[in-house]
């Protein structure tokens, strides 16, 4: 006797849809699947096995009884859920996954079992590649698929779940691309008789196969005719396998045959008996008629005796007939029950047909829906196209106007009037009230030059999109202009409006500007800065110079502390200025700026030591600076967390520029000098920005220039807080905000900081309008 093993069956079987076998299905389909899994089971002992497309899970469960481990991978979540619930074993697990990207590691299994999966995939090559990937070098694949020529002949209905069936040649050649050694079996379910060689070693030639072909004929073949399936055993190594495999469904076949034979025998017996009875009854009736016609006494007595005898016989036969009729009724009842089952099956089939029809209608509805969407999108496309045409027209007009303005500005700069007004401008910087004179002249000049024609469509689109450019470029933007910009930002939501800003943004950012390779110095003030941080900053500046095409870029530094040793950084090409103690952030930058500009730098970029440049940051800053001819103080955009103060999305005007990464041109330095050294640290950049504004310089935020600045999750120390507030007090005192000064002084007292002597040089009263103390230390409206 061979090995006996238990049947694996779900507590509650999944419904059979035709896509995957469930343990509730019987008959031919069940026999085919069980046979394949039992075959694989013979090769799974002690192995790590992957059952790909494990379906309801019963097959994996058979394998898990002998394997070291089995993973059933299945694409359908309901099937995975069902399998996990019904087939539990420490060596078995089911996971969701796709045969085309198997969720297992490289070389992690010894045996891959894949039955009736290949034909469900378009990407069969991907699948086989994945199988190769997860198989260990000596691993084996057992793979089955229907033979298209036999399973799906042209006249037969197709299996709707099969997307790509293969014929035998296609199957064989595909596998050969992945496995050097393959043995293929063919399979076909049947009722019949097996005749195998008692001694397999004496096998020669294909098996002789006989098949009944209708009532009157048989067919003889060498080998199995019309096999529906092909099963390949694939390996990287030479293979030796059993010559054949049989699955014997004794229980049903034998039982049905036995029952049939019994029923037939019974039926023929009953029929024979019935025929005999009918014959005897006919004879008796005939005899009775004859005796009625000849009432001879002599004859009557024997006749009566015969009649009596016959009547008894008839009664006996009638009784016997009743028993037989009863047996016949039982058989008819059996037939009736079979008919009911048949009708139920037909009803189920009809149910499937109705569901299929409903699904078809549903699909049709989706098609209609997508048609509606397509129509809607087409309409929107047309509208967008019209908007685009309008905008292109506007862009053309603006470009012409801009060119015109540039010509006029160049003409202005080259004009005798401009040169003659030079002393007046310089005087104006010293006497701010007078600055209105040249500014008015310049503004009226520019207004003539660049006033754009706004198409009616855009005029009605809202005020945000296009304002006369000179309004944005005018350097004298009081702080409240920024607040107006914020409201514009909120309104700018539509795609078309956002896109309409692109040309202006590109222009004010100088996106297409060629960098004139000015001499650029990056200045860094260090204070106990970790060496790695400083080296990162310097190397990022060097990368930035290279990306910008700046050949004369330099990095200068001064150490306000005592930690940084020049020998550790000189390989980066930095220039060190001798420190004079901890003089504060602004004062140290002033020393660096003086050195840089005396050395011929056109641009100075102050950079915090705990940050570093995005490779494109320096070029973006220089491009933007060139748009303004050196008259704009430009901050980089801090990363990963921007300062929340607002800036104009079109012109990039902002209330003040942060000193974390700040571009200062020689033009600005010559007019307003460096930072106010009264500020030890913090707020010196706010003060510097307001002074620049008061001197007609623009304050810009370069949204393209990213400078990493480590400000996230910083621990706030009391020392930092005190210095911050002290600088705020200085700023308030200098710019005449009594309210802010009082508020902060109170806070300092609460912190236990005694009042201290401070005498910052106050700015002229006329400049106070440039300051903004309405938003605490943000000094500006903020975005969040």
């Amino acid at each position, binding site marked *: 006797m061979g090995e006996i093993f238990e049947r694996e069956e779900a507590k509650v079987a999944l419904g059979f849809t035709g896509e995957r076998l469930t343990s509730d299905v019987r008959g031919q389909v069940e026999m085919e699947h069980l046979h394949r899994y039992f075959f694989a089971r013979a090769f799974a002992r002690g192995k790590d096995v992957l059952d790909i497309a494990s379906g309801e899970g019963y097959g994996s469960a058979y394998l898990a009884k002998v394997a070291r481990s089995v993973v059933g991978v299945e694409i359908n979540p309901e099937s*995975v859920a069902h399998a996990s619930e019904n087939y539990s074993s420490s060596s078995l697990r089911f996971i969701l996954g796709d045969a*085309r990207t198997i969720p297992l590691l490289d070389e992690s299994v010894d045996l891959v079992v894949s039955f009736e999966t290949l034909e469900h995939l378009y990407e069969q090559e991907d699948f086989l590649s994945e199988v190769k990937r997860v198989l260990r070098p000596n691993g084996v694949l057992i793979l089955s698929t229907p033979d298209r020529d036999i399973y799906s002949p042209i006249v037969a209905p197709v299996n709707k779940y099969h997307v790509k069936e293969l014929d035998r040649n296609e199957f064989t050649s595909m596998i050969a691309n992945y496995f050097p050694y393959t043995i293929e079996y063919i399979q076909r379910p049947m009722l019949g008789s097996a005749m195998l060689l008692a001694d397999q070693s004496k096998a020669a030639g294909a098996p002789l196969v006989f098949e009944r072909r209708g009532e009157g004929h048989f067919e003889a073949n060498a080998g199995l005719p019309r096999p529906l399936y092909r099963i390949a055993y694939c390996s990287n190594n030479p293979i030796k396998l059993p010559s054949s495999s049989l699955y014997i469904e004794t229980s049903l076949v034998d039982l049905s045959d036995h029952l049939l034979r019994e029923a037939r025998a019974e039926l023929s017996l009953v029929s024979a008996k019935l025929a005999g009875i009918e014959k005897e009854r006919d004879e008796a009736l005939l005899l009775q008629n004859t005796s009625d016609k000849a009432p001879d006494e002599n004859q009557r007595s024997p006749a009566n005796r015969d009649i009596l005898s016959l009547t008894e016989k008839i009664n006996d036969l009638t009784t016997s007939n009743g028993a037989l009729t009863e047996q016949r009724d039982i058989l008819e009842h059996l037939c009736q029950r079979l008919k009911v089952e048949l009708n139920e099956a037909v009803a189920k089939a009809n149910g499937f047909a109705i569901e299929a029809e409903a699904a078809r209608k549903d699909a049709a509805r989706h098609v209609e829906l997508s048609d509606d969407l397509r129509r809607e999108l087409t309409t929107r496309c047309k509208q967008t196209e019209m908007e685009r045409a309008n905008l292109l027209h506007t862009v053309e007009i603006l470009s012409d106007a801009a060119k015109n303005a540039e010509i006029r500005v160049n003409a202005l700069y080259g004009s005798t009037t401009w040169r003659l007004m030079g002393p007046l401008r310089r005087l104006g910087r010293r006497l701010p009230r007078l600055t209105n004179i040249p500014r008015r002249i310049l503004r009226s000049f520019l207004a003539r030059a660049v006033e754009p024609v706004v198409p009616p469509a855009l005029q009605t689109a809202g005020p945000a999109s296009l304002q006369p450019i000179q309004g944005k470029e005018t350097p004298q933007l009081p702080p409240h202009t920024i607040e107006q910009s914020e409201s514009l930002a909120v309104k700018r939501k539509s795609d078309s409006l956002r896109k309409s800003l692109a040309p202006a943004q*590109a222009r004010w950012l100088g996106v297409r500007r060629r960098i004139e390779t000015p001499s650029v110095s990056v200045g860094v003030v260090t204070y106990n800065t970790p060496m790695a941080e400083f080296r990162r900053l310097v*190397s990022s500046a060097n*990368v930035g110079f290279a990306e910008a095409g700046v050949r004369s870029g330099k990095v200068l530094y001064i150490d306000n502390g005592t930690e940084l040793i020049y020998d550790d950084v000189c390989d980066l090409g930095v220039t060190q200025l001798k420190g004079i103690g901890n003089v504060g952030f602004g004062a140290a930058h002033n020393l660096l700026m003086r050195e840089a500009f005396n050395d011929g730098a056109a641009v100075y970029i102050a950079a915090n030591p705990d940050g570093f440049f995005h*490779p494109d940051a320096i070029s973006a800053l220089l491009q933007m600076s060139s748009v303004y001819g050196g008259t704009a103080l430009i901050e980089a955009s801090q990363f990963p967390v921007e300062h929340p103060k607002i800036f104009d*999305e079109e012109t990039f005007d902002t209330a003040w520029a942060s000193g974390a990464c700040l571009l200062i041109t020689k033009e600005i330095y010559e007019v307003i000098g460096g930072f106010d050294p009264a500020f030890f640290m913090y707020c010196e950049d706010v003060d510097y920005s307001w002074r620049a504004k008061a001197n007609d310089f623009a304050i810009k935020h370069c949204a393209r220039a990213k400078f*990493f600045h480590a400000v*996230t999750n910083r621990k706030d120390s009391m020392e930092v807080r005190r210095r911050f507030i002290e600088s705020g007090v200085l700023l308030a005192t200098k710019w005449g905000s009594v309210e802010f000064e009082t508020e902060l002084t109170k806070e300092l007292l609460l912190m236990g900081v005694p009042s201290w002597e401070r005498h910052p040089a106050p700015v002229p009263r006329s400049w106070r309008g440039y300051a903004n103390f309405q938003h605490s230390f943000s000094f500006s409206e903020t975005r969040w």
Partner: protein
Amino acid sequence: MFDFDRGIDVIVRFHDYSKLRELEKAIFSLIAQNYRPLNIHVCLQRFSVEDIVKLKERLAPFFAIENSPHLEVHNFEYEHPLDARSSLVNLGIARARSRFLAFLDYDDILYPEAYDFLINRLISSNVGIAFGGIQLAMIDKYSEFDFVKEKSQPFVGLNLLDFMAENFCPIHSFVVDRTKVIDGLLFFDTNMNRNEDYDFLLRVTAEVVSDFSLVKTFMGEYFLKSDGSNTILTISATSSQSVIEWKRAENFIEARRNITRVSPAVQRSLGISSPVEGLTIRGLLDAKSLLLKPN
């Protein structure tokens, strides 16, 4: 570049060359990470040879900065699935060789201390996965820059049970310790193009003990774009196809909750002193009022 004891692999998936500016931003945030050794795996979705060359050229200057991480670029070349977002992650995982594993989408960023904090947490609390907080930044996308309009904190969960009930952890909010998570769990389901990261996390957090103590400390930002190009469910995502896909993903996640068993270790970490065999995530959520100790 391989350091299984201390290193971290970060997988960045990228599918469209025209969005290179956003990828550069994500990479810049990784260059700025304090933690080393760090390997960046940029996984591309079917890029042409020319685009791969261009992309490498564009990224090269970032890696010329001193002490930059190591970069590897991998290209997913199969035709299917069309939307290969999960396959890209799986490709990256297959190439990752370090002890710690993290993910970042090309259009999001991390703060410089993110991996420092999370890995310290993993080691000190001896767990398999640690989560941090993420801020949401609403942005208008322009061709040259992103305009951050506002920031908020919509990701409001606090602990494992909150997470199993609803996802509040974006793909860049966590780090996995591979010494504590079996490799068989480390994959994204390729059938999913919505909620695939949540599906991954449900499987992992049901199996290994997790740490949520840093969810109130922000480690990075998730950018919600006003042009609707995020793949999350937004008001704008109302096309019938999108709704169907989201519904399908929701069903999938619920199926995941129904079939995924919560390991005894995780149950114990939640205060269940006698773990229940076969307890699923759904079962745990349904019984959570009975739990003694929230994680």
